[in-house]
């Protein structure tokens, strides 16, 4: 990684990782000494479907620049069907963000299995790069709300 620059925008990204797949993938990526961008703050959830819209909004409206939700691939959910519900919830949330034009690109849903340590690193680094390019969450510039 480059030397940190004071003026360079370093995004804050929150990732909700499912305990059974993506969190294990993060572990694997770490123990395999892969390079993962430090912009991501990880929150472990038991299932990606546990991520209520209020969790996303609390983080978004408090200034996070990007939000990643990641869980098992469809069909591989530890609880059988949780990630199918995640996909529906996410679709609804994404639609609200699109309709209100609240930078829907700041939300991302990814499927990363426990064995995909390298994919985890790729997803996190690519998402960080994308958010860096998007710039800071406009909410952070508003003193009204």
């Amino acid at each position, binding site marked *: 990684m480059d030397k940190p620059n004071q003026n360079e925008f370093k995004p804050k990204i929150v990732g909700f990782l499912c305990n059974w797949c993506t969190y294990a993938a993060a572990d694997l990526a770490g123990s395999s000494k892969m390079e993962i961008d430090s912009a991501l703050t990880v929150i472990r959830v038991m299932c990606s479907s546990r991520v*209520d*819209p*209020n969790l*996303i*909004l*609390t983080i978004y*409206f*408090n*200034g996070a620049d990007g939000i990643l939700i990641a869980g098992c691939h*469809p*069909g591989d959910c530890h609880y059988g*069907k949780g990630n*199918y*519900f995640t*996909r*529906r*919830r*996410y*679709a*609804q*949330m*994404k*639609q*609200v963000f*699109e*309709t*209100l*034009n*609240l930078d829907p*690109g700041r939300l*991302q*849903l*990814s*499927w990363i299995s426990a064995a995909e340590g390298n*994919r985890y690193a*790729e*997803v996190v680094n*690519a*998402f960080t*790069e*994308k958010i860096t*390019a998007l710039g800071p969450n*406009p*909410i*952070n*510039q*508003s*003193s*009204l*709300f």
Partner: protein
Amino acid sequence: MSTDSKSGGRIPIENGIEQTLRKVLKESLKSDLIDALLLPVKVPSGDSYAWILMQDPALVEEEASPMAAVMPVQGAKALKSLTRKGNGSLRVAAMMRPCEVRGTIELSKLNQINLDNVTLISYDCPGALPLSDMSDAPQDTEEAFMGLLSERNFESTAVKPVCQFCTEFSMGAADVHIGMADPDTSQLLLISGSEKGTAFLSATGLKVDEEPSAWEKQTDSIQKKRIQQMDKAFQTIQPMVEGFDNLADTFSNCIGCHNCQSACPICYCRQCYSDSKESSLESAYYLDKAEKRGGISLPHDRLMFHVGRLSHMSLSCVSCGQCTDACPVSIPVAKVFSYVAAQTQQAFEYKAGKTAGEAIPLKEYKEDELKKIHEMTKSAESQESPHE
């Protein structure tokens, strides 16, 4: 408007629409099919209506206002309070606006209403008048609404803003529907929408053997106009909500009373996250943020509250406009919610409250669906990534 054929019957209108209706309702209560009626009744002060569960036929004839000028409490909420713990053996018929029926259907899907012994009656609704009209000038408001009904006027601009572009103003999932849009104004057309409805109509002594094709044609043509109104309205709403700044502007005078939520038939949670202490953060956090931004508004979650509600209930929003009626600072909440709800419901090809048989979108799934989102989850790179 409807795909399956419906059947209806007619009774002559005597002493006005309301009086004729009262007679029909009274007959049903006297029969052994219905134990009680849930109907709006004008409150003693005359400036509002309350839902009354009636068992005395005389009360129906003297007091009921089956078609109320305004909608103070959404009918679905009234029915919820009656049947949340099951409705036992009580057989109730409730007369509601189409949006109240849709709210009822949504709440029944959310296990908040038990419809087993309930007969729902709806009518072609010209729109409800704003609640504030009724408290300002009760008599004029009531007369204005009766005027809309007797003139069969479905294009009034006096009704609530969301009512003006309501496309679901006619028969939905109700068991019995009153075809107010029917061209024959000398008779009242009653249409059966289910077995329950047919039983209800025969209990009132009505012959149900007519195919109401003239009414269907009329409602179709009203609906076409309403769709145009909706497109027009959405074009004006879009710039009000698109982008953080515009959205913040639209809700900038929100006083955080949460009346919109209390009046909403769909928001049924006992306690909302936004009312819980979990939605507040440590004071140091706010100070830090104020330092970074130069200043922040408090309470800090006013805008988040609305977006949170949109994310939680817009799939079930029936665009009844109760939120706007309840807003003390005249924010066009219902317009915004109706607009966003149209998009989220479209994403799941769902229409809140339209049909009783299906589950709400978040209660079910298909393994193979939402292609666009699914594709995005697979790639490591997001498609729009500018750095490649």
